[in-house]
Every structure is written in structure tokens, then in C-alpha cells.
């Protein structure tokens, strides 16, 4: 049990350190790369919780797709210190307040959530296998699952529309 605790502590330290570095580093590309390391250590946390599927999908989606597109944009925009916009104080205050509110909501959610893993362990079901996960997703959580896919579709259509509009203006 202690080895898992040590691994957890190391992973948590890496996660927190890289998350802070992502915020504090001056160079936007460095902060994006710190964020990538942060995502990897979060995938490690998923592996500690025995959910291989979630860990791999997290790596594919966040590190493999989203952050690469992010890096892409930053590299092409060539951000310098000169064109860094100085934000007014009220915006910063608003950001802090909204972050605090999100923290409160998340903490409440975590306090009220019931750990379902115990149930699976008592019934002896292999909850980490993708077969069980797929059945649960498409039976119990069918409606939210479909709604999420509709949301993604709408976002995709929106992106296509936005990029098309730019083309006709030229």
C-alpha cells in the first residue's frame, strides 16, 4: 500500500508544480509544455485509480490533440512581451472571484458524490474493462451521452461556419 502512496505523492507534486509553472512562466510555449506534463501526471492519477481507458483517452484527447493545436497557434502567433495586453484591475478581480466560486462548487460536488467503486468491488464486476464502461454509458447514461455528442457536433459546425466566413470576406 505504501508504494502506491509514494507514487501518488510524487504524481500529485508533479501535477501541482507543473500547473503552477504553467501559470507563472513568462514564455507561452513553456507554459503550454508545462500543461502537457500536468496532463500526463493526471493520466497517471487515473491509472492509480485503475481506469486504463480514462487514462489513455485523456492522453489522446488532451495531450495528443488539444495541446498540440494549442502549441500550433502559439507558435504561429509569435507572442512577444511587447504585445502582451495589460488587463484592467476589474477583470483580474472578476477572474479571482469566478475561480473561487468554481472551487466552492467543485468541493461541494466532491463532498456529496458517492464513491461507486466500492459497489463494483463487492459485486466483483470488472469495472475497468471497456465492455462494462461502454454498456453503462449507452444504457444508464444514454441521454447525457447523446447530448454531449450533439454539443460536440454543434461546436464543430460552428467552427466550420466561422472559418468559411473569413474566406468569403477575402
Amino acid at each position, binding site marked *: 500500500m505504501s508504494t502506491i502512496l509514494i507514487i501518488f505523492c510524487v504524481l500529485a507534486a508533479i501535477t501541482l508544480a507543473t500547473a503552477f509553472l504553467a501559470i507563472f512562466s513568462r514564455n507561452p510555449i513553456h507554459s503550454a*509544455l508545462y500543461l502537457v506534463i500536468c496532463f500526463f501526471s493526471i493520466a497517471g492519477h487515473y491509472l492509480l485509480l485503475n481506469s486504463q481507458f480514462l487514462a489513455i483517452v485523456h492522453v*489522446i484527447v488532451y495531450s495528443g*490533440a488539444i495541446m*498540440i493545436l494549442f502549441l*500550433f497557434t502559439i507558435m504561429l502567433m509569435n507572442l512577444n512581451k511587447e504585445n502582451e495586453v495589460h488587463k484592467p484591475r476589474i477583470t483580474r478581480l472578476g477572474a479571482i472571484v469566478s475561480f473561487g466560486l468554481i472551487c466552492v462548487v467543485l468541493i461541494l460536488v466532491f463532498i456529496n458524490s458517492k464513491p461507486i467503486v466500492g459497489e463494483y468491488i463487492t459485486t466483483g464486476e470488472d469495472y475497468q474493462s471497456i465492455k462494462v464502461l461502454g454498456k453503462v454509458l449507452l444504457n444508464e447514461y444514454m441521454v447525457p451521452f447523446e447530448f454531449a455528442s450533439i454539443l460536440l457536433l454543434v461546436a464543430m459546425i460552428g467552427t466550420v461556419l466561422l472559418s468559411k466566413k473569413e474566406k468569403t470576406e477575402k
Partner: protein
Amino acid sequence: MDSTIIIEKSIIILVVFAITMLMAMYSTLAERKVAAWLQDRIGPNRAGKGGLLQPLADGLKLFSKEEFEPDTPNRFLFFVGPAVAMSTALMTSAVIPWGDRFHLFGRDIILQATDIDVALLYVFGVISVGVYGIMIGGWASNNKFSLIGAIRAASQMVSYEVAMGLSIIALLMMTGTLSLREISAQQPGMHWNVFYQPLSFLIFLICAFAETNRTPFDLAECETELIGGYHTEYSSMKMGFYLFAEYANMFISATILAVLFFGAYNYPGMAWAVENWGVNIANVIGIAVLFAKICFFIFFYMWVRWTIPRFRYDQLMHLGWRILIPLSIINIIITGIVILRAEIAVYLGF
């Protein structure tokens, strides 16, 4: 966990690592020999018998070259680039089943480093992380040509990953599992997936070419436009690592192609061989068969490289987004209809 499993797995990992390195090394020689053969030349034949020691000589040369560093503010990232490229190229081999099993010292030894439930997704994850090696290296070089090369390579790889993932879904609908071990066990004898999913295979093959940045998709290092692409500023063994990673990637993608579509270690009469000659001999033949398939695909990569000219960049994107992705979606729909044909017939009242 008992110590024998750890020793067993360590040996498998070491052997797989050594084989990947060896295959990558000799792929460089094979590439030059195949190129020479296709162009009616002799090719390298000075080092060793028939040029057999050429890869060693090349490695020695790269190690002893002067290490040049460009004037870059990101010296650390400049070093990280090739390291990431090389390690991601080697990581994929962990989930590949090299054979069924050996029976030694009274116990079954499974010829695979690890058999995880989501092996195929793991492969995709490692492939998508591999883009970082190129992007970091290209950006840290502090050179416009390197940056454009890196961005071309990354956008190409990201675009073709989509088509690759979609083409695999049709196959997964048929196999019903993501474990590479189970997928290879499902193709005994000549029941290879390529006969059931030819379109999926074709799309996957084209995407594999794009993912490994090989001709006709080697726009990342298009010499006439970009000098050398993302590794323009690299020299000595750091550049060697980038080139080596490309060959390691080629070996791994040839292996994935052989495992997914060409029956992995299976060959006609394997069950008979297991019965009459024993598990060990049948599996030694199986490993040899798998490597024969891999060598064929590596040869195929080289054959294509010296036959088909390079695409233009807009042609590449057109092929990826407007042809391969719709084709693979159509393939998914057809596969779904075929799998559910009995239910559909009942529903329509036939």
C-alpha cells in the same frame, strides 16, 4: 507479484528493444540498397561484406561528428526534441504480441511485454504524443525553416490521425476488442482481417505512410522548399536520433499493420504444427512468419518511396479530410449494416 514474472517480462522487454534497434539500423541499409536496386545502382558495398557493416559505420560517423548548436534561448528544449521522438518511437512495442506463447520450464511464457485491455488505444496515444518531439525540436531550433517544417509535420500527423482512428473503428466493430493479443488470436490460419476489411486496410495503410512522414507524404522535410525540415539545425547524433526514430516508427507501423490486418503470427497449419511439433517449434515458426510480414511491409514502404513522387501540401490535406475521412465513415456504416443484417431483415419484415 512473484519475481519470475518480473525477470520474464524484463527479458522480453530487453529483447524487443534490441530487435527494434536492430531492425531500425538495418532498415537504413535496406533503404539504400532498395533505392540502389530500383535505380539500377549497386548501393553501399564498402563496409563489410556487401555493405553489411554500413549501419555501424554510419552510427560511428554520426557519433564522432561535431555537435553544432544554434543560437537558441531554449537549449534544454533543443535537447528534449530528439529524446521525445526516440522514446515515443520505442514505446509502442510494449503492447505488440510477437507470438502466442512458449512452454518453457513447466510454465507458459506469453510473448508480449504487457497485455492491456486498451492496447490499440495505447498505440494511438503514443502516436499522438510522438508529434511533440517534432514540434519541440522544430520550435527550439530558432529557425523559420525548422518551424515551418515542424508545423507541417504536426498538422499532417494530426489530420491523418483522425482518418486512421475512424478506419480502425470498422475493424473494431468486427473484432469486438481493443486488445492486440485477442485481435491476433481471432485470425487463425488464413482468416486475416484484410480479407474482411479491405477498405479499412487501405485507409490505414495510407495514414500509416502519413504518420511516419514517409514519401509520398514527407512534406515535413521537403528539401527543395524547407532545406531539411524540422531537423535543419540538428547535427551529430541528435539528428541521428530523429532519423533513427523515423525508421523505428516505420518498423512499428509495419508491425501494427501485420498484427491488425495480416494475421500477426498466424500461418496456415499452425494448429497442426502445435499438435505435431509442440508449442515451442510452432511459435518459433510463428515469430519468423510475423517478421517476414513485417519485412515485407518495410520493403513496401521503401518501394513506394522510390516510386511515387511527393504530394503538394493542399493535395495532402484534400486527400486526408475530403476523401479518407468520408470513405472511412462509409466503411463504418457498411460494416454496421453487415453485422446487423439479421436484425435489419427482421425489422423490415423480410
